[in-house]
């Protein structure tokens, strides 16, 4: 008689975890809709892929992080206009590899585009960008007149 190993997995302690995972993966498949995104104005014209982003705010600046794996610095274009941040570029296939040498590709190649509307005006001359390990980090200092000011209110 052969012994079958008893597989203790987290079903008992976490019955909904697997469902959550499935839910998340299904959401990813349908992730072209940005209707729920209060900051985004994405246009899908000519691009089927958009980087996922995080936006943080401090008193003086915004910090935006975007996942852009597999790009070179000169393939990413960043521009700022008033309070709009535009990240766009083109993901190119490996330049030394010809089409017929590809076995399989799930990665997206082509142009991408994302507009992010920030809640305050930024100083476009002072924007700093860093690209490391596939993550683009942008620091956007707010314009002086856009910084929160404390106004003392006298109560009579």
């Amino acid at each position, binding site marked *: 008689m052969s012994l079958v190993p008893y597989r203790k997995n987290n079903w008992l302690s976490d019955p909904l975890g697997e469902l959550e995972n499935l839910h998340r993966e299904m959401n990813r498949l349908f992730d072209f809709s940005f209707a729920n995104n209060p900051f985004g104005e994405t246009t899908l014209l000519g691009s089927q892929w958009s980087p996922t982003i995080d936006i943080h705010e401090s008193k003086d600046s915004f910090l935006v992080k975007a996942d852009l794996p597999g790009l070179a610095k000169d393939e990413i274009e960043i521009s700022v206009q008033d309070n709009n941040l535009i990240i766009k570029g083109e993901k190119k296939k490996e330049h030394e590899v010809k089409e017929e040498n590809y*076995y399989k590709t799930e990665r*997206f190649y082509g142009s991408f585009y994302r507009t992010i509307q920030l809640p305050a005006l930024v100083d476009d001359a002072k924007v700093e960008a860093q690209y490391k390990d596939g993550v683009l980090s942008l620091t956007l200092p707010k314009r002086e007149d856009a910084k929160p000011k404390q106004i003392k209110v006298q109560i009579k």
Partner: protein
Amino acid sequence: MLEKHKLFAKNERMPTILPVASIYDQNQKIVLAIEMAGVDKSTIDVCVEGNILAIKAIKRKENISGEYQALYQERQNVEYRRSFELNAEVDREGIEAEYKNGILKLSLTLAKRAQPKKIEIKT
């Protein structure tokens, strides 16, 4: 299950995601380019067991200094996991891995086919 807990902090739960990959021929090697942006390099684990090449990595978002407040978060902490089945011709010892710009590139070489061995017949 136990090895999973070694990498995670206590009670840390994160979703497991399949990273997307491209496979192509380059310079007589088979290259797997796996997209995993923002991964903590120390957690990348590539191992071959029998015919299976298994890749694991954990993406943890960097700590943002306290002066910042999160306004909008699409990115998540995730565990990337993917396995590939290798055929017998791949040289197990010669697998090279490189993580650059968010892509984990694995280069596989094919072992040279052994010459057919001629067997002498004793008379």
